[in-house]
C-alpha cells in the first residue's frame, strides 16, 4: 500500500500536468482538483506506515541500490511531504483565484505548478544523488517558468538571473556527484556512507555539492537571485518558492551532511555553515529593513529566515534537529501566508510600494491581519510555531552552552520585528488622501482566507507541536540519535 501511495503521490500530479497539455481547457478545473485533492488522503497511508514501522524503502523497478534508484520514506521526508502537500494545497486555493482555470494564463500556469509539486515530492523521497540532480533541475525549471509566467520585465530578469545561477549551482552539484561516483561507484545516499572515506577528494566533492545546494537555497552570500525572484513572481509562486522550493535544497544538504557524511568529524565546517546562517539572518533582516516594496521585504525576510536552518549544523543535536524541522514547518506556513496576503494587497492597490500602502488596513483588513499573524511567527513571538522553533533552538544552544548562537537566535527576532513592524506601522498610518476604493480589482475573500488559514496554521503550530516533534525525534540521523 505504501509503495503504491508514494508512487501516486509523485505521479498523479505529474500525469495530471501532462493531461493538461492534451485535454482542452474546459477540463482544467477538474484536472487541478484531481491533481491536488487526493494527495492528503494518499499521504495518510505512508504516514501510518512510518508511525507504525518507521522508515520505509521503495525499491523502484525492483532493482535495489547500487543498481537502481531507491526512495526512502523516513520521518523527515514524511514531514517534508506533508509540508509540501499542505502548503501547496492552500496556496493552490489562492492560485485558483489569481489564475482562474477559465483564463488564458491558467493553461500556462497550472501544468508547471503541478510539475513543481510533483517534483518536490519526488525530490524529498529520493535517496539517489543523481536522481536528486534531475529532480532539482525539474524543480528549478518549473519554478523559474512560474516566476516568468506573467511576463513582467522585472520578473523575467529575475527569472533569468535565477536560471543562470541555478544552472551553475547544478553543475557544481553534478561535479560533486561525478567525483563521488568515481570514488565509490555508488549513488545511493545511504549506501555511499559505507563506502565513503573522508579523503580530500571526497571532502571536496561534498563541499562542491553543498555549495551548489547553498546557491539553490539562497544562503547568504549566495542569495543573489532570491530577492528579485521572490519579490517579482506572481503571488502564489512567491509563496511556494519561499515556503518550499528553497527549503528542499537545504533538506538535501541536511541529508548529505548528517546521513551521507554522518560519520565524519565536521565540527569546524559546521561552524562555518552556522556562521553563514548567522550572516544570512543579520544581512537578510537588515536588507529587508531598507526595502521600499512589500514583496521585497518578505523576500529578504526569507533570506534571513533560511539562516536558521543553517544553525542546525553547528548545534547538531536532537533538540536542534527538532528546532530546525519545526522552523521549516512554521516558516513555510507563515511565509506563504505573507506572500499571499501581499499578493492580494498588490492586486488591490496596484503597487506594493510601502508609500502607497498607508491605511490599507481599513480596506483589506483580512490580508493585513494575515500578514500580521504570520509576522508574529516570523518574529518568533509566542504563541506561534516560530516561537516554538526559536525556543527549541535556544534550548539546543543552551544545552551545548553555545552562547553565541543563543544570543544570535534570541536577538534575531528583534531584527525581524524591526522590518515587519515597519510594514505594519505604515499600514496603520492614516493616509493623507483617501484611498481610492477599487472594488473591482479586489481579490475575492477566499483568496484572503487562504492566507489567513496559512497564518493561523503558523500560530496554531505553537500549540500542537507534539506530533511533529515526536515524528522528527523518531527520524534522527544516525549520528544524532541519543
Amino acid at each position, binding site marked *: 500500500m505504501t509503495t503504491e501511495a508514494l508512487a501516486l503521490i509523485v505521479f498523479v500530479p505529474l500525469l495530471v500536468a501532462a493531461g493538461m497539455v492534451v485535454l482542452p481547457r474546459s477540463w482544467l478545473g477538474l484536472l487541478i482538483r484531481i491533481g491536488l485533492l487526493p494527495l492528503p488522503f494518499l499521504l495518510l497511508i505512508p504516514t501510518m506506515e512510518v508511525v507504525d514501522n518507521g522508515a520505509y524503502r521503495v525499491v523502484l523497478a525492483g532493482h535495489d541500490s547500487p543498481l537502481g534508484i531507491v526512495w526512502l520514506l523516513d520521518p523527515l521526508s514524511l514531514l517534508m511531504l506533508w509540508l509540501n502537500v499542505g502548503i501547496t494545497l492552500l496556496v493552490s486555493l489562492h492560485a485558483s483565484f489569481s489564475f482562474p482555470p477559465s483564463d488564458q494564463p491558467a493553461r500556462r500556469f497550472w501544468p508547471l505548478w503541478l510539475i513543481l509539486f510533483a517534483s518536490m515530492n519526488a525530490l524529498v523521497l529520493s535517496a539517489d544523488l543523481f536522481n536528486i540532480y534531475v529532480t532539482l533541475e525539474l524543480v528549478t525549471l518549473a519554478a523559474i517558468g512560474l516566476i516568468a509566467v506573467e*511576463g513582467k520585465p522585472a520578473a523575467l530578469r529575475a527569472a533569468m*538571473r535565477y536560471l543562470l545561477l541555478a544552472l551553475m549551482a547544478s553543475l557544481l552539484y553534478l561535479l560533486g556527484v561525478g567525483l563521488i*561516483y568515481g570514488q565509490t561507484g555508488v549513488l545511493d545516499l545511504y549506501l555511499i556512507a559505507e563506502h565513503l572515506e573522508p579523503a580530500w577528494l571526497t571532502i571536496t566533492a561534498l563541499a562542491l555539492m553543498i555549495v551548489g545546494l547553498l546557491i539553490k537555497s539562497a544562503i547568504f552570500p549566495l542569495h543573489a537571485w532570491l530577492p528579485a525572484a521572490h519579490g*517579482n513572481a506572481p503571488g502564489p509562486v512567491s509563496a511556494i518558492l519561499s515556503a518550499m522550493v528553497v527549503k528542499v535544497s537545504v533538506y538535501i544538504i541536511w541529508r548529505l551532511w548528517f546521513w551521507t557524511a554522518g560519520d565524519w568529524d565536521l565540527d569546524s565546517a559546521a561552524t562555518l555553515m552556522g556562521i553563514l546562517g548567522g550572516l544570512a539572518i543579520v544581512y537578510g533582516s537588515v536588507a529587508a529593513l531598507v526595502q521600499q516594496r512589500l514583496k*521585497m521585504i518578505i523576500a529578504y525576510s526569507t533570506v534571513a529566515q533560511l539562516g536558521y536552518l543553517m544553525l542546525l549544523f553547528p548545534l547538531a543535536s536532537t533538540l536542534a534537529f527538532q528546532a530546525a524541522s519545526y522552523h521549516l514547518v512554521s516558516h513555510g506556513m507563515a511565509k506563504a501566508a505573507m506572500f499571499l496576503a501581499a499578493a492580494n494587497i498588490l492586486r488591490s492597490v496596484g503597487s506594493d510600494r510601502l508609500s502607497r500602502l498607508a491605511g490599507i488596513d481599513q480596506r483589506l483588513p483580512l490580508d493585513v491581519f494575515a500578514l500580521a499573524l504570520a509576522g508574529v511567527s516570523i518574529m518568533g513571538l509566542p504563541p506561534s510555531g516560530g516561537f516554538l522553533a526559536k525556543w527549541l533552538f535556544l534550548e539546543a544552544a543552551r544545552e551545548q552552552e553555545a552562547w553565541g548562537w543563543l544570543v544570535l537566535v534570541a536577538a534575531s527576532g528583534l531584527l525581524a520585528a524591526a522590518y515587519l513592524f515597519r510594514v505594519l506601522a505604515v499600514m496603520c498610518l492614516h493616509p493623507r488622501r483617501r484611498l481610492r476604493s477599487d472594488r473591482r480589482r479586489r481579490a475575492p475573500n477566499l483568496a484572503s482566507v487562504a492566507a489567513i488559514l496559512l497564518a493561523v496554521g503558523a500560530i496554531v503550530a505553537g500549540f500542537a507541536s507534539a506530533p511533529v516533534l515526536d515524528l522528527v525525534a523518531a527520524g534522527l540521523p544516525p549520528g544524532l540519535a541519543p
Partner: protein
Amino acid sequence: MDNAALYVLAAAVLFGVGVYGLIVSAHLMRKLFAINIMGNAIFILMVAVAGPIDGAPDPVPQALVLTGIVIAVSATAFALALMVRLYQETGRATLADDNGPGNDD
C-alpha cells in the same frame, strides 16, 4: 581509457574558460555558451573519473551524462526563450537593470 587524465585536464581548462566567459560576458547568449561549456567539461570529467570496467568505460556515468545532456539542452532551450522575451520587453539581452535591485514595480 589511458587518455582519461588528458581529457580531465582538458575538462579543467574548458571549465575555466566557461567560468571566465560566464563572468565577463554581458550578453545572455554568451553566458549560455559559457554554461554549456562548463557543463560539457563536467560531463567529460564524470565519465573520465569513473573507474573503467574491463578497459571499457563504466556505463552508469555514460547514462548519467546522456541524461545530463538532455537536461542541458532543455534548460538552454528555456533560457533562450526567456532571453528572447526579455529582449522583447526591455530591449536588452543582458541582466543589467537601471532601477537597482528589485525596485522595479
